[in-house]
C-alpha cells in the first residue's frame, strides 16, 4: 500500500507556477556571429538551434509531491543535458537528439519475473495511466542541480499492472540501443579509451521502484518529452543522482539479482548502485556537500536524499550509506 504524506514545505496544487511563467523563456540563444565564434573559443557558448515541435499534454493533475521551489527555465532544462549516447558535451544532446531520435513508433518491453509481460507500443503502454505533473529537484552527481516540472506516471502503477512474481527483487531498465540514432553507440571500441558498454542500463530495488516518488516521465513543462531529455519515456528518481534516471527506456525487466548499472560498472568506486544524493559521502574526486543550482552563481548546501528524506529515508534504515553509496 502507498502511504502519501504531505509535508508543510510541500506545495499545494493551486500554488504551482502558472503556465504563463513557464513560457516566459529567457532568450539567450541568439544566432549572432559572436556566439558562433564563441563556441570555438569558449566551450559553453551555444549556437542557436530551432526548438522541436512537441505536443502539449493537456491539463495535468498537480501532485502533492511537487516542490514549491521555482522551476528552471525550459531553455535551461533542454540545453544542458547529460545524454552520453549523443556525446559527452552538455550541448551535444540538444544539437543532435532532435530529429535523430524518433519518438514513434516506440516499443516498451516488460519482461522477466512478472505475470503480465509483453511488448507494448507507446500508446498501449500508457493506456489507463493518468499523467500528472511532478515538480522535482534534480541533483546531478557533478554537483549541479535543477528544478524540473516533469509530466509522468508513478512507476508503481506500471509495476502493479505487470504483476511481478515473488522473485522480482529488482527492476532493470534499458535505454534504446540503435547506433543509427545514437552516434556514441556507433563509436565504440577504442581499447582502454572504450568507455560505456551500450546500451545504458540502470536498476532499482523493488521498494525503491514502488516508492510513490519514482516516476516514469513522458514530458516536461506540460509538453511531450524533448528528445534531449530522454524522449519519449524516461525514469525520474528524484532522491538519487541524475544518472539513475535513465533516458529513452525500451525495456523494464524484473529480476532477482541486483542489475548491472552503467556508471556503477564503469567506475564502481565513484558511482554506487544506490547513488542516493548524500552530502556526507563525497565523490572520490569532488565534494557532494554543495551544489550549484542552474541559474545561480553561488553554491548551496545539498540536502540528504535531495530533500526527500521523509519519503525515502525508511528505505535505507540500517544501511551504511558510506558503504552503499
Amino acid at each position: 500500500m502507498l502511504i502519501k504524506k504531505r509535508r508543510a514545505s510541500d506545495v499545494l496544487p493551486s500554488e504551482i507556477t502558472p503556465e504563463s511563467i513557464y513560457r516566459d523563456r529567457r532568450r539567450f540563444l541568439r544566432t549572432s556571429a559572436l556566439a558562433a565564434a564563441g563556441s570555438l573559443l569558449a566551450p559553453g557558448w551555444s549556437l542557436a538551434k530551432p526548438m522541436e515541435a512537441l505536443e502539449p499534454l493537456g491539463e495535468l493533475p498537480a501532485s502533492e509531491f511537487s516542490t514549491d521551489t521555482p522551476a528552471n527555465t525550459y531553455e535551461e532544462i533542454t540545453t544542458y543535458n547529460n545524454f552520453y549516447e549523443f556525446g559527452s558535451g552538455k550541448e551535444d544532446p540538444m544539437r543532435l537528439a532532435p530529429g535523430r531520435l524518433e519518438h514513434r513508433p516506440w516499443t516498451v518491453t516488460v519482461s522477466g519475473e512478472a505475470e503480465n509481460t509483453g511488448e507494448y507500443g507507446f500508446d498501449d503502454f500508457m493506456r489507463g495511466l493518468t499523467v500528472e505533473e511532478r515538480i522535482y529537484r534534480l541533483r546531478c552527481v557533478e554537483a549541479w542541480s535543477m528544478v524540473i516540472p516533469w509530466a509522468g506516471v508513478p512507476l508503481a502503477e506500471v509495476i502493479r499492472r505487470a504483476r511481478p512474481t515473488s522473485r522480482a527483487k529488482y527492476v532493470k531498465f534499458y535505454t534504446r540501443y540503435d547506433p543509427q540514432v545514437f552516434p556514441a553507440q556507433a563509436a565504440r571500441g577504442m581499447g582502454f579509451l572504450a568507455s560505456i558498454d551500450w546500451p545504458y542500463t540502470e536498476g532499482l530495488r523493488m521498494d525503491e521502484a514502488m516508492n510513490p516518488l519514482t516516476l516514469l516521465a513522458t514530458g516536461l513543462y506540460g509538453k511531450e518529452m524533448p528528445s534531449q531529455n530522454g524522449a519519449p519515456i524516461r525514469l525520474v528518481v528524484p532522491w538519487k543522482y541524475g544518472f539513475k534516471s535513465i533516458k529513452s527506456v525500451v525495456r523494464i525487466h524484473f529480476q532477482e539479482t541486483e542489475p548491472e548499472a552503467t556508471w556503477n560498472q564503469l567506475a564502481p568506486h565513484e558511482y554506487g548502485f544506490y547513488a542516493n544524493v548524500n552530502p556526507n559521502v563525497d565523490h572520490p574526486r569532488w565534494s557532494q556537500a554543495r551544489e550549484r543550482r542552474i541559474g545561480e552563481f553561488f553554491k548551496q548546501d545539498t540536502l540528504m536524499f535531495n530533500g526527500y528524506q521523509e519519503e525515502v529515508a525508511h528505505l535505507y534504515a540500517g544501511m551504511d550509506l558510506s558503504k552503499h553509496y
Partner: protein
Amino acid sequence: MRGGQSVMGAATLARTPSPAGLRALRVGLFAVAGLPAMMLVVGLVQGELGVNPVETLLDTTGIWALRFLLATLAVTPIRWLTGAVWVVRLRRQVGLWAFFYASCHFAVFAVFDHGLALAPMIEDIAKRPFILVGMSGLLLMLPLALTSTRGWIRRLGKRWRQLHWLVYPAAVLGLVHFFWLIRANRWTEPLIYAALLAIFLGWRAWRRRGVALRDG
C-alpha cells in the same frame, strides 16, 4: 649561442623582424591572446555563457591556461626547427598569459565555488588531489611571473634559467589536473595536450643527449 642552423631552411621566417615589426607582433599577440578573456567578459555581461556560466568560466580559463603554457614550451622547439630566434622574444608574453588565465581559473573557483571563504577553500584544496595538483601548478608559475621582468632576469643571472625550469613541472601538474577531471569518454583534448607536452619535453631531452654526446 648555438642557434641559427635552420632545419627547415625557412629563410624568411628566420629573419628577425625590425623593432617596429616586433612591436606590432607583440600587440597582435596581446589582442589575440586576450580575446578569450574578453569574450568571457562580454558573454557574462550579456548572459550568453550558456546555462551554467560559472562552469563555462572555469572550463574556458583553465583550458586557455594550459594552451598558453604549452605554447611557451613550443617556443624553443620552433626556434630550433625554423631558425627564427626572434620568437623567443614573444615568449614572456605567452607565459604571462598562461599565468593570467590560470589565475582567473583559480579566482572563479575561489569566488563562485567558495564565496572567498578561506577555511572551506583550504579544506577543499587539501582534500581533493586534483585541486591540490592544479593549485601547485599555479603556485609554481607565480615566481616565474614575478621574475619575468628584465630587471629580475639581470639580477638573477644564471639562476633565472634554473628558476624558470619550473615551467616543466607546472605544465605537467596542469595536465594531470585536467586528466583528473575527465568523466568517461572525453579524452581527446587532454590526450592531444599530453602528446604535445611529450613531444616538447622529449625533444628537449633528445637534444640535450645529442649535445652531451657531441660536447662530452
